[in-house]
């Protein structure tokens, strides 16, 4: 897809085009386990007079497939512990996947070493949730913003770097005269602007934003969200946007992937998902947004709580809380099925027409 075409597609990508256009990022069969049992010696146990090796894992992601097209903002939503941040970190190469592949612009990137990854790091940048933790407290803003430029443009002279820093500071609404100050001298909203400036400094094409506005106040959230949208229009960015705030998703996202316990249960364009949620979990999630309009919450109550990702339920991971679960749901893992309007849903009840 040419740059012009992607610019036009920034805002509205029809659902059927997403399937045909070559995606910028492809995630295939991604799995990530974290070991709970320590190193080899700690795993050894005596059982019935025998020495056995005992291992336990947190199954953070269990087979996720996602495509992200150029110019779109794919939002991943879900409750805490559903693996959405792990997906973001694995995509960025901050974690290595246990299984599966990640392709960026047609090139497999999950098995590259850090030197081979360097050119990709310039093209993909990340914005973290907490701007109080993501800025180095011992660096001035100027140093913070210069660091990625020095790394990715080793041939630039001092003036070129200073010019770029000034440009990027202006573009996020930070006064370039503040460069000599330290992170702690700024409010949360300003810090997040600086973190965004750092991500934009190397002119990336793809940005992973992990809950970038969750730590901010309501009036500041709108400012930062506007900034992210402006950057998307001006720089033709592609976003992988991780959040738990569905109101933000409805406003910001081109497509939405709903995750539950390490699996994607529904992917749809934002308008379709909010108008016609299909998966029972999506329905419950949408019904629990506190709205300004109703006087009374009319939410769908789910039984129990999210099971631990250490011992995954058999079959559909949602069956324990699902009002429509039957014997098949308890045994067989549902796969994402494509519907006419481009929505993919992983649910036996939807597939069988019970729901």
């Amino acid at each position: 897809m040419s740059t012009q075409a992607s610019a036009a597609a920034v805002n509205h990508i029809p659902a059927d085009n997403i399937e045909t256009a070559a995606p910028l990022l492809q995630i295939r069969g991604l799995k990530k386990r974290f070991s709970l049992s320590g190193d080899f010696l700690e795993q050894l146990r005596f059982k019935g007079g025998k020495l056995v090796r005992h291992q336990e894992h947190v199954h953070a992601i269990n087979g996720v497939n996602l495509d992200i097209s150029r110019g779109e903002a794919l939002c991943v939503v879900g409750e805490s512990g559903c693996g959405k941040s792990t997906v973001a970190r694995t995509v960025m190469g901050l974690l290595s996947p246990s299984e599966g592949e990640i392709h960026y612009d047609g090139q497999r990137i999950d098995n590259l070493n850090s030197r081979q990854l360097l050119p990709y790091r310039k093209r993909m940048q990340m914005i973290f949730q907490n701007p109080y933790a993501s800025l180095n407290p011992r660096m001035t803003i100027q140093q913070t913003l210069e660091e990625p430029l020095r790394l990715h443009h080793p041939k630039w002279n001092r003036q070129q770097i200073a010019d770029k820093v000034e440009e990027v500071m202006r573009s996020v609404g930070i006064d370039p005269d503040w460069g000599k100050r330290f992170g702690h001298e700024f409010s949360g909203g300003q810090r997040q602007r600086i973190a965004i400036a750092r991500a934009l400094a190397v002119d990336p094409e793809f940005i992973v934003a992990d809950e970038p506005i969750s730590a901010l106040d309501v009036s500041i959230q709108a400012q930062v969200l506007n900034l992210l949208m402006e950057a998307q229009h001006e720089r033709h960015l592609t976003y992988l946007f991780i959040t738990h705030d569905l109101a933000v998703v409805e406003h910001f996202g081109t497509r939405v992937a709903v995750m539950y316990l390490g699996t994607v249960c529904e992917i749809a364009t934002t308008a379709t998902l909010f108008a016609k949620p299909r998966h029972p979990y999506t329905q419950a999630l949408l019904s629990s947004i506190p709205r300004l309009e109703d006087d009374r919450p009319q939410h769908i109550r789910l039984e129990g709580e999210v099971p631990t990702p250490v011992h995954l339920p058999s079959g559909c991971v949602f069956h324990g809380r699902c009002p429509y679960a039957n014997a098949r749901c308890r045994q067989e893992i549902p796969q994402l099925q494509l519907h006419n309007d481009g929505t993919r849903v992983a649910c036996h009840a939807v597939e069988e027409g019970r729901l």
Partner: protein
Amino acid sequence: MALLEVSQLDVRFALRQGEVKAIRDVSFTLERGERLGIVGESGAGKSVAAFSLLNLISKPGFIAGGSIRFEGQTLNTMSERGLRKIRGNRISMIFQDPMMTLNPVLSIGEQMVECLKAHRRISSREARAIALDKLRQVQIPSPEKRLDQYPHELSGGMRQRIIIAIALLLDPDIIIADEPTTALDVTIQAEIMALLLDLCEQHNVGLILITHDLGVVSQVTQRMLVMYAGRVIEQGPTREIINDPQHPYTQGLINALPQMATPGEKLNQIRGSMPSLSNLPSGCAFHPRCDFIKRADGQTRPACVEQVPGFVQTGNCQVACHMVAELLEDRRLKEEGQ
């Protein structure tokens, strides 16, 4: 007489750099069984307001003026002994983080029994029976088992249910809930809020809900206060404020919500950020961020910069804004002229 009457409450923190006025001139009342929301961004003083109701402000903070009257007793001058009879008994609190509130080295049952025995002369067995009953009310699965469990064995949502059970333990008249669902996930949040609402209605308990989430306030409360930089800037019936906010800040806050804008369009942001309490702007604290400080003729309204606005009554709401006061005054003059 209202159950709780707060008038002109003034709380300050004596810091090395000088006194910081955390809240000033906060007045409100709460009737029996009424649900009141206090809304504002971080630093607006909403938590300080809630904590000072039970004199839970610790040094260097202190209540510098005003009064808090509960059933005719003045709480802010009461002895610590007298206050202890009210805290947790007549007025109980729910805090934001359920892990910090529960004692990690005591089982759930021990904490509940301890609380009951501190206020009532009853046997451990009776106390345990009451505790069990309250756990059932908050719909915890297998409550008998929970009594012997420790906080770390329970999930966040479960812990917050236990906190609610403890808050209800002595059948209080008022529950003060400080961001009770902020640390929880959306689906759990919806359940906890619905539960709290049901229980308050069933037992006719008053609720003071402190939150930054306008959605939660609009679903749970009957009246609300909006706070900005330590002052109440608008108060009245929740529905009226949500549907037709008068103060420019309240308008800005509601309009900034993503659900108020067309998807993909720019959100209506309030420019700037809340000033620090130690360095407040003169006049109306909101004036540097306000779009309405200019009159129709393009001149800045001097009062906005010079004078702290007092409350004016519009409908059933009270609003502290010079612009609104001026509009009302104009309207009144016009009506008199006719």
